[in-house]
């Protein structure tokens, strides 16, 4: 499915407004997310999704109904629901003997599935099992990606981007220093284990301006195992990552900065005519009346020739 130009006109003003709001925009808001239940999800898988939903909350919807479908075989249902709910991210929980406690996280582009990554929740401790104060909903969390595996493995590289997409929320210009409360830590090992931990930041005095950071685990704590993946082709990713022209910074030509930070400009000059250069005025160098007359005549002839040439060339 793709964004289509409608043929039928909207009949009501409100309908028109809704359709306009669904049109692609240069700057997009926070990505909406839907959480679905697959065929017979286990309690653990469902709770994992529920906790991710709690972390993502203002921009997410949790759909309780079970759906008899397998996303890796047929993703049309996801595309349909994403179209209906205007969502770009999705999570599906399922459970089978072959793949116990399965959680599929993915994202869409232009209402078609872009990436889909399957994770098995091997260990899980829910948010409710940590008896302490949680963070406010809708906070922008700090994201930590630990371990060299994030950059080495192609699947994990995409998973890193996917996790960032899930918890990035929105581009902000400014952030309140006291609002930095939440940390999500993703640690990947070489054998495909991903440990997701969530902490609350406690800012302590350090005797300096920058505070000392202490962390308190607030949950959820999930140990994921990487399973199947379906990644988008590089072409599609490039298409999806395109920056609209309005947002591209306008480069100013011929302006540069040197090592000391001073601004340098380059100016293009025409060729200088040395003959007409005004030097020191002296009586001896002054032109006589005859010389002046001659010069004028020369100029006239030159002008005439130029005109004739122009006509010829036409």
């Amino acid at each position, binding site marked *: 499915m793709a*964004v289509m*130009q409608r*043929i039928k006109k909207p009949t009501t003003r409100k309908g028109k407004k809704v359709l306009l709001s669904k049109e*692609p*925009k*240069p700057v*997009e808001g926070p*990505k909406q997310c839907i959480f679905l239940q697959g065929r017979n999800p286990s309690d653990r898988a469902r709770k994992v999704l529920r906790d991710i939903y709690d972390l993502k909350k203002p921009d997410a919807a949790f759909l309780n109904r079970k759906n008899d479908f397998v996303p890796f075989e047929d993703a049309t249902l996801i595309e349909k629901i994403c179209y209906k709910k205007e969502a*770009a991210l999705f999570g599906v929980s399922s459970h089978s003997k072959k793949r116990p406690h399965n959680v599929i996280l993915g994202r*869409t*582009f*232009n209402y078609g599935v*872009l990436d889909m990554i399957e994770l098995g929740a091997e260990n899980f401790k829910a948010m409710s099992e940590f008896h302490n104060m949680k963070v406010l909903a809708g906070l*922008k*969390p*700090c*994201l*930590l*990606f*630990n*371990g*060299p595996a*994030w*950059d080495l493995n192609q699947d994990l590289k995409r998973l*890193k*981007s996917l996790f*960032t*997409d899930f918890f*990035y929320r929105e581009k902000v*210009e*400014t*952030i*309140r*220093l*006291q609002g*930095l409360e939440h*940390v999500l*830590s993703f*640690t990947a*090992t070489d054998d495909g284990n991903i*440990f997701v*931990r969530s*902490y609350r930041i406690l800012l*302590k*005095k*350090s*005797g300096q*301006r*920058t*505070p*000392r*950071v202490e*962390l308190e*685990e607030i949950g959820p704590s999930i140990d994921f195992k990487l399973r199947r993946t379906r990644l988008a082709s590089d072409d599609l990713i490039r*298409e*999806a*990552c*395109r*920056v*609209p022209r309005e947002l591209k910074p306008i480069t100013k030509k011929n302006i540069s900065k040197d090592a000391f930070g001073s601004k340098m400009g380059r100016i293009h000059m025409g060729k200088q005519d040395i003959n007409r250069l005004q030097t020191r005025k002296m009586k001896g160098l002054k032109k006589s009346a005859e010389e002046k007359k001659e010069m004028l005549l020369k100029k006239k002839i030159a002008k005439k020739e130029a005109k004739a040439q122009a006509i010829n060339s036409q």
Partner: protein
Amino acid sequence: MDIVNDILEREQKKAEKYKPIVVEKHLELEFDVGTLLTSDTNDLDSKLIKSDQERDIYLQSLARDNTQLLLNKIWELPTERIDEAIVVRLPQPTTVLPRAKPVPKPKPLTKWQEFAKAKGITKTKKSKLEWDEQLQKWVPLYGFRKAAAEKEKNWLIPVPQNLDPMTDMYEKKATEKSEKVAKNELQRLKNIARARKVKIPRVGLPITSDKASSTQLATATSVAKASTASLGKFQDKLPKEKEARGKGVHELIPGKERKRKLPVPTPAAEKEQNLSMIDRILRKRPKIDMEKAVSKHINEEQLQRSEEKKSMKPMKGRGKPKGKGNATNFSAKKPKGGKGQRNPSKKNPGRKRR
């Protein structure tokens, strides 16, 4: 000196009271402060991460160190005060995330917009209300209360003299209006098709309520003739029939694709092209139809001969050659027939004797 030492000692004690904010790392971390993201590429302690008891403590200490480093970076940024809250201005994020929908394309222009742009026609704003002299009140241009005003205004419509006196002028007006709406809708659809580059079937002739003009009829016949499976190849022609010509007619006739000329690359090439065309025209010689020329020539000769004969006849009558008294020009002698000698090389091999 005692005082100085005292102060230094006190300061040291104070520093000992607080835990440090500096973290040592083997490899430098990568920060994306704009997205509040840190990636730590240092090797993990495999022993600690595999043991179930110590893993959580290790992960927490790792997370603490990395968070400390990230917050150190953030606290370095310039701060502002907005509504009694201290905020920092974040730099541009460096991580590129895919969009949810493709980058919006500029809306394609409609045919009218294109034309207006080419001609430099700008939209003039009309006032929403206009003073109606007949009704003596302000009437809206469209929408609410326009229809009522129109109804009030047209309580009576005279039938023009050239029309049937029984025509319902209200009905006529309504059909005209609905036709206008339909035409507008058709044009809107055409614009959409053009924007999507979809080929749409030809509508053919424009629907007119009045009689069709001769050019329209000619076009219609041409189109109808070409609308067979073989594109009108085997269709007979009427005597004096002409193919329809004019702007846009060619496109209507099926099977007639217009060949576009390539644009002229340079002015010099254009000049050469034009000169060669003039040359071609000036060099033209009349075409010679050999058969026609020959028959014409023969005809001329015959005419000349007959003229000669006519002019010769009176001469004949006046001065007859003396020896030939016979008017019919018959000789009394019998035909000799080759005198009995057969000559096979001759066309007439002579009389056969028995």
